C-alpha cells in the first residue's frame, strides 16, 4: 500500500511487462491471477471470532506475503439515551511498524487512519448491519469491535483486509442473552415483560428511577452462541491496479509502486447473482477516462464473484475442520 | 471582452503549421497543445510560453539573492529570499549552501570562509544544482556574484573597493569580503 521507492528503470520495466502482449509479470502470474491465499479461522482463543490471512506467503519457508490478523471482540454497551438500538460496529486497523519500517510514526498513523476509514465506512453501513446485536431495547446492546492488525505488507493490503474482516465476522459467535428483571418487593402487580409500563408504586426507590432494574444473563459459555445474522452479506474487495489501458490484480509492492493509480471496489452479494457496491475509491494520479472507469466497474463484478465463491468454500471447510478438531478434543477428554 | 486569456486545460489554437517548441505554461497531450497556466500565450524566441511573474523555487542556473545565516569553515548557509528577480513572499525562504570550493574560481582550495562572507551579508549567487534534501548548492565563482550588501561592524553600509575588500564609510576600516562587481562598472 505505501509504495516502496523503486528506480525509474525498474518501474518502466514492470510497466512494459504488463503492457506487453502476452503480458509478463515478475512471478509469472497472468494479469488477473491471485497469489496463494491461506486462511485460518478461530486462531485467537480469547476473541468471539478471529481469522488469520496471508496472501502470497512462500509455501516452503512461510516467509514474505501480506499478513493480516483479524479479531472480533463483543462488548456490552449501555445505550441509555443514544440513538442506536440494535448494536454498533467499530472497525479499526493498526499497522505494526515492522510492516512499514520506512514510514515515520506520523505517516504510519495517517496510513492506519486511512485504512480504518475505508474499512469502517464500508462495514458499519446500516445496509449490512446484523439484526441480532441488540440485547435489551433502548438499554443494553452489543458493541462489536473488529480489530485488524497488518503484521506484514507485500502489496494488495485492501483485499487482504476485507477478506480477513469477512472471515473473522463469519466466525463470530454472539452469546445468547436472556433478560432478567428484579421485582421491587412492594410492587403487587405482576409486571409484564414490557419494561417501560410505569406504575407509580410507593416503593422505597427514588420515584424518579424506573420501577424495575433489568439486566441480562448469559446462558451460554462465553465462546458459544449464534452466528451473526446475515453473515453471508459481508463484502469482499478487489483492487484493480491501472497501467494506461490495462489493469491487473493482486499487485506486489514493486508492482504497486510502478502503477500510477488503483481502483478499489467493495461488493456485497445479497442474492448470489448481482452484487451491490458498498464502497469505491480511486487512489493515485494516473489518467482515467469516464468510459474506462465504467468498464472497470463492470469487470470488477466478475473478479469479486470468483473471490466471493472461493472464500465461501474455504470458510465452509474451515468450519468442518474446526468441528472435527473439537470432536477429537471432546473424544480425547474422558 | 475575453482577450486571448487561456485557462489550464484549454487547447491553444496554433497559428501556423509546425508545432512550436513548448516553453513553461503549456504542455502537449495526445497531439493537442494545451495551457497549464492562466495567462496569455505568446512567443518568446521560438518557444510558445505563458509567463507568470510568480515566485518559483530555485532551479539550476537561476540567479538568487539571499542573506548569510550560518558560517562554517567548509560552507556558508544562505537563506534565499529572491529567485530570478522575483521576491518570495515575506516569511517564505529556501535554504542554500555555498561550499568553500564554490566561493571563487581562483585558488579554490585556499578559501577562508571568514574572509568571504559574514552573517547578514546579502549575496547574489547562481544555483549549481538542486543539492540534497535540505539545501540547494549555490556558487559565487563569477565576477558578478558574491556579496552585494554588507554592514560594517560600525553599522554603516560598506562600499566595495576591490573584488575581495569592502570599506566602511564611517570608520574607513577595510573588511574582507568576496564582493560582486557592482553593475554599470565596465
Amino acid at each position, binding site marked *: 500500500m505505501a509504495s516502496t521507492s523503486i528506480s525509474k528503470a525498474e518501474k518502466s520495466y514492470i510497466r512494459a511487462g504488463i503492457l506487453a502482449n502476452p503480458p509478463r509479470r515478475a512471478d509469472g502470474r497472468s494479469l488477473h491471477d491471485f497469489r496463494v491465499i491461506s486462511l485460518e479461522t478461530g486462531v485467537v482463543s480469547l476473541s468471539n471470532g478471529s481469522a488469520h490471512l496471508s496472501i502470497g506467503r512462500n509455501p516452503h519457508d512461510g516467509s514474505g506475503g501480506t499478513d493480516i490478523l483479524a479479531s472480533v471482540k463483543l462488548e456490552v454497551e449501555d445505550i441509555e439515551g443514544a440513538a442506536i438500538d440494535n448494536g454498533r460496529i467499530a472497525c479499526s486497523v493498526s499497522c505494526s511498524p515492522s510492516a512499514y519500517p520506512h514510514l515515520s510514526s506520523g505517516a504510519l498513523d495517517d496510513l492506519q487512519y486511512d485504512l480504518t476509514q475505508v474499512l469502517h465506512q464500508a462495514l458499519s453501513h446500516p445496509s449490512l448491519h446484523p439484526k441480532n446485536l441488540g440485547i435489551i431495547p433502548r438499554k443494553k446492546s452489543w458493541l462489536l469491535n473488529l480489530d485488524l492488525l497488518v503484521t506484514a505488507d507485500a502489496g494488495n493490503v485492501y483485499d487482504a483486509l476485507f477478506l480477513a474482516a469477512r472471515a473473522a465476522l463469519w466466525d463470530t459467535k454472539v452469546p445468547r442473552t436472556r433478560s432478567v428483571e428484579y421485582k421491587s418487593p412492594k410492587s403487587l402487580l405482576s409486571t409484564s415483560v414490557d419494561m417501560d409500563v410505569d406504575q407509580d408504586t410507593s416503593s422505597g426507590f427514588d420515584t*424518579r428511577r424506573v420501577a424495575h432494574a433489568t439486566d441480562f444473563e448469559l446462558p451460554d459459555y462465553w465462546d458459544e452462541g449464534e452466528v451473526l445474522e446475515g453473515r453471508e452479506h459481508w463484502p469482499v474487495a478487489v483492487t484493480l491496479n491501472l497501467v494506461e489501458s490495462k489493469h491487473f490484480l493482486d499487485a506486489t509492492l514493486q508492482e504497486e509502486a510502478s502503477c500510477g493509480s488503483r481502483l478499489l471496489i467493495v461488493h456485497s452479494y445479497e442474492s448470489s447473482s448481482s452484487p451491490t457496491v458498498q464502497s469505491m475509491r480511486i487512489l493515485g494520479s494516473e489518467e482515467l477516462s469516464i468510459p474506462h472507469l465504467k468498464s472497470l466497474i463492470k469487470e470488477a463484478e466478475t473478479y469479486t464473484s470468483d473471490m466471493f465463491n472461493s472464500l465461501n468454500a474455504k470458510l465452509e471447510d474451515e468450519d468442518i475442520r474446526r468441528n472435527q478438531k473439537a470432536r477429537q478434543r471432546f473424544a480425547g477428554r474422558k | 471582452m475575453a482577450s486571448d486569456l487561456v485557462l489550464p486545460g484549454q487547447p491553444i489554437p496554433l497559428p501556423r503549421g509546425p508545432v512550436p517548441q513548448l516553453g513553461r505554461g503549456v504542455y502537449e497531450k495526445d497531439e493537442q497543445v494545451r495551457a497549464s497556466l492562466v495567462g496569455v500565450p505568446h512567443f518568446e524566441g521560438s518557444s510558445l510560453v505563458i509567463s507568470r*511573474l510568480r515566485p518559483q523555487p530555485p532551479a539550476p542556473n537561476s540567479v538568487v*539573492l539571499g*542573506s548569510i545565516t550560518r558560517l562554517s569553515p567548509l560552507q556558508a548557509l544562505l537563506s534565499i*529570499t*529572491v529567485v530570478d*528577480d*522575483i*521576491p*518570495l*513572499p*515575506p*516569511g*517564505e525562504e529556501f535554504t542554500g549552501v555555498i561550499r568553500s570550493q564554490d566561493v571563487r574560481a581562483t585558488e579554490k582550495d585556499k578559501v577562508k570562509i571568514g574572509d568571504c562572507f559574514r552573517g547578514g551579508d*546579502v549575496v547574489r549567487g547562481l544555483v549549481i544544482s538542486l543539492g540534497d534534501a535540505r539545501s540547494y548548492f549555490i556558487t559565487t565563482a563569477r565576477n558578478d556574484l558574491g556579496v*552585494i*550588501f554588507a554592514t560594517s561592524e560600525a*553599522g*554603516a*553600509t560598506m*562600499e*566595495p573597493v576591490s573584488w575581495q575588500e569592502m570599506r566602511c*564609510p*564611517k570608520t574607513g576600516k577595510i573588511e574582507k569580503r568576496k564582493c560582486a562587481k*557592482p*553593475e*554599470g562598472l565596465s
Partner: protein
Amino acid sequence: MASARPSPIIPTATAGKTSSHVAQKEANKAAIFQRLHPRIYLERFLEEKIRPDGRSIAQNDEGDNAWRNVEVNVGSITTASGSALVRIGNTTVVCGVKAEICEPDLDNPSEGFLVPNVDLPALCSPKFKPGPPTEEAQVLSEKLNEVLGNGMLPLSSLCIHSGKSAWVLYVDATVINYDGNVFDATLLAMVCALKNVMLPHASYDPDVNRTICTRPGVDPTKPSRKLVIQEDLVPYGFSFGVFACSHILPDPSASEEPLLDTSISIILDSHAQVLAVSQLGAGVDTEYEASGPDLDDTPARKADTLAECISLARNRLAILLNKVYDTMN
C-alpha cells in the same frame, strides 16, 4: 539611523520596453528592495509622509484616511447562534458563537460562561504552520478574554436554573486573511457576533435533570431572546504602532507590524471613555524631535504619544460607530 543610499542592487532597466513593462520592472525592483531591506523601505516612504499601502500620515488632514476601510456583515452563518464577518482593509475575520448548556461552577452557581478564542490558521498567512495555537494566537485570546470580561455581558444573564444549568457561549473567531491589526478586527467581530446571538428559550426540568429548549418560532409563549448587553460597556479597539521613535502609525498592516518598536492599544467604550490602554515599548522620543535636523516639527508634536493616540482613537470612534450601527439594526 543612517539612511545612506545603498549601491544599486538590481541591474538598471534595459531601455526599449513598452511603458507598462518598464513599470512592471520598476515595481519588481521595489518589491525586491522591500524583501531585502524592509526597514529602509518603510523609512523612505515615511519621509514622504506616505505609507506603503497609500495611506497618509500627515498631521494636518482630519486623519481619517490614516485608517483602513472597515466592513461588517452579520448573521451569515446559519449553523451558529450568532455570527459576524469583519474586514479591516484586507484583514478578514469570521466569528461564530455556539451556545451550549452546562452545569454552572460550584462557587458561582448562577453564572454562565463566555469562552472567546481566536484561531490563526495556516490559511491566513505564510508565517503560520498548521498545528496547535501559536503564541500569537494565545496572546490574542488572552487579551480578548480580558477585554470581553469587563461586564459588557453580565454572566448572570446566561443562567437558566441556578446551580443546575446555564448557557456557555463559545465565541470562536477564525482569521481568514492576516494583513495586520488582527486584534481590532477580532474584537469588533466578537462584539458584533454577540449582538447577533439569538438564544432559544430554555427550561430546566428537575425530574429528568435535563434542560429542554424550544426552537424559535415553534411556541409563541416561549420566544428566543437576544443577549443582555450593557451598551455603554461595549469595547471598541484601536491599535497604533510607533516606528523608529518618530512616527505614529494607526492601524498597522502586516508589512509594517514586524518593524514597529512600540505597539499601543486603546480601548474605548461607545461614549469615547477609555476602558483600557496598553503601551508596549517607548513612546515617540520627544528630545529626538527637537534635535532632529531634517524633521521640521512644530512644538505641538511634543504632546505625549499616549494622549495623541487617544485623541486619534476618539475621532475614529465616531466614524466607526455609525458604520457598525447601520449594519446592526
